[in-house]
């Protein structure tokens, strides 16, 4: 009886899994192994491809620009992820304390940047950072300050691109944080009130620990999202000035566009995959995910 049921369950399970397994095979597994194979060739569309062993990988690893681009990606992530976490956490707390009507208005309005495409946002921010007549320099002029070359100055270019990235991402992050906040049983706070705990104590001892899984999820997705960002720098700076905004994916795209052979960009993509995978693994390790205490 038990065995029969077990098998029936298995059949249904396989059936339900089939669509996603088939789709993943077609769009992820096969291309992945194909690109692995191609990365060992000088791949040409018009002539027989030539086997070159690890040359493509060696080429990428010895390229200062690739290592620089990974470093740019990490710096960019360190600007975007913590900032958007803090802003979202604060916003989520504010929204939680609001009344129903105003809360939905705020929730809807902060979600709007999320549905704006990165390209559109880049164009908007290019106007904001315009050297003559841009909003940013206009505001500076109120304080009698000289106009700044936001996107052309080596020092300000990357932070200037991080701002739209935060703006684009924080709506979704806030809503997820808010969902997490609502999931914390109100009785914990009531008990804390009875014990005479203050606002900060409640936040530090109840809210923050119980948000750990949410923070882990948002850190990993935020990290992979930010380090694979390329359209902002593509549109706003083209990777300049002096490659200070060339993120890893932009490096790959540039090689894909300019190189005569494609092997180089594929090798770089695979290396980026290794970098992303290992850093995500480190984050998981550090922020050990646990089941919520209240089950």
């Amino acid at each position, binding site marked *: 009886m038990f065995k029969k049921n077990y098998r029936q369950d298995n059949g249904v399970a396989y059936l339900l899994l089939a669509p996603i397994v088939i789709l993943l095979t077609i769009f992820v597994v096969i291309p992945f192994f194909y690109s692995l194979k191609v990365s060992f060739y000088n791949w*040409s*569309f*018009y*002539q027989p491809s030539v086997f070159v062993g690890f040359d493509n990988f*060696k*080429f990428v690893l*010895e390229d*200062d620009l690739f290592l620089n681009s990974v470093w740019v990606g990490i710096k960019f992530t360190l600007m975007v992820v913590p900032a958007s976490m803090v802003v979202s956490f604060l916003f989520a707390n504010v929204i939680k304390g609001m009344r*129903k009507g105003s*809360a*939905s208005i705020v*929730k*809807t309005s902060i*979600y*709007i940047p*999320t*549905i*704006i*495409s990165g390209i*559109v946002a880049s164009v908007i921010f290019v106007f904001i*950072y315009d*050297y*003559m007549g841009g909003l940013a320099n206009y505001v500076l002029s109120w304080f009698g300050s000289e*106009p*700044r*070359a*936001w*996107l*052309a*100055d*080596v020092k300000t270019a990357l932070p200037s691109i991080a701002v739209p990235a935060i703006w684009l991402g924080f709506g979704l992050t806030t*809503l997820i944080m*808010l*969902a997490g906040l*609502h*999931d914390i*049983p*109100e009785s914990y706070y009531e008990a804390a009130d009875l014990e005479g705990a203050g606002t900060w104590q409640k936040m530090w001892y109840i809210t923050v620990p119980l948000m750990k899984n949410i923070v882990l999820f948002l850190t990993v997705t935020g990290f992979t999202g930010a380090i694979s960002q390329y359209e902002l720098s593509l549109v706003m700076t*083209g*990777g*300049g*000035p*002096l*490659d200070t905004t060339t993120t890893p994916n932009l490096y790959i*795209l540039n090689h*894909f*566009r*300019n190189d*005569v052979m*494609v092997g180089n960009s594929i090798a770089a993509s695979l290396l980026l995959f290794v970098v992303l995978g290992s850093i995500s693994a480190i984050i998981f390790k550090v922020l050990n995910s646990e089941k919520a205490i209240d089950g």
Partner: protein
Amino acid sequence: MQPTQGKIRFSTALLSVMIVSSMALTACGSGNDSSNNTSNTTTNASGNTGNSTDAANDGNTGTAAPAEKVTVEFWANKFEATTDAWFKKWVDAFNKSQDQIEVKLQIVPGDAWAQKLKAAQAADKAPDFYTMNYGGIANAAKLAQIQPLNDLIEGAKFDDLYDNIKDFVSVGDKYYAYPMLVEPSAVLYYRKDLYEAAGLDPEKPPTTWDELIENGKKLTKDGIFGLATGQTAPDLGWSSWGLQSGAAGHLALTDDWSKADIMNDGYRAVVNFYADAFKSGIMPKQALSGYPDIAPFGQGKVAQAINGSWAIGQLRNDFKNMLDKVGVAPMPSQNGDASTTTATLGGWTLVVDGKSKHPKEASAFISYLLGGETDVMIDFFKTSQFSKFSPRKSVDEAMKSDPAASQDPWRALIAEKVIPFSKAEPIYPWDVSIAVSTAIESAMKGTDPEKALQKAEKDINDFIAKSKLAGTNPKAAQ
């Protein structure tokens, strides 16, 4: 109780978010559409399919079986709106003029070009023929990406080309492309009225780099910048080729592509020119536009601008009330000698894909469009406001009798004083050009020019070693 309420509230909120977002998305979508109308002109299909169904209907009504037209696919880069319209006009005219070949035109924006073409090539779906600039021909020919045209286009049509252009489109003893136009990459545009206001002679444009910078200093005031030119590495990569060639007498690689050739006074002078111009404060700290776009000059934000000859078309089409204040002169050189190279001749050609199944039909259209009746090309040069130049002798001859062309002083100046001294664009990989322009940009941003050049030299030599570039120059054998 409390949590459930919270959940209900959240779900209604989520629903409202979804509704609002879907509304906003559709609004966004329509917004994109309207913006696409200006930038994305791939919607040729409507016109062309209309034609082909008409043709098919005509065939059906007759007694004969419907004539089966050979369809060839044609991708063109997106250029000025006038060029796009010219492509469409003559593709339609060609399709109507005969019943053998149907050309399907698709206009592809420049920033999507490389991705789209590579994706199509990888899937064996590359277009039969497409636009390619002179710089790409030699490498594409070496990789068999494009076909030799000697057997496809009659020799007389190639004999009509100027000798230097013949060289641009050939590798070894074969022609691989048919040229459409040439345009010098650097010409000086300056504001005569502002020259006068600053006490400068509007009829005496600068001839040396020093004069250019000195004039720029006098012109920089009241929120107007004295000079606009390329100032980011990707722009400088190609817009400075002419200056490199003129100052050093050669470009960044030795002829056999075995090593970098930039540690010399010519290259030092070029790097110093850009660094001095930038540091003197006559250029905006952040480019007001990309190099090929002269809009800031047209809007009156800049007193002197370096730009390609194509900017004449932009000024004449978009900034008509500025025209009588604009002076045009050859780009100044290091020493002021008028015969020094300061520009490279860029331009576009049509090539037939190496795997095209209908090379004959594709080249029939290329012959019709670029190598046929002179009025087709004259129509093109007219719509571009004579900002581009003909690679064909017969077209230039025919244009002499056209009053608008023969009386155009800017056209005459560029044809007589710029083009004869311009050089071909280099065909070495872009990595080399960007290494040089990165040196220029870092010198502008404060790096010691000598150190910047040394780094570029090392980067180029590393690149040569890694990509085994030495001895692979497709043109070296000639």
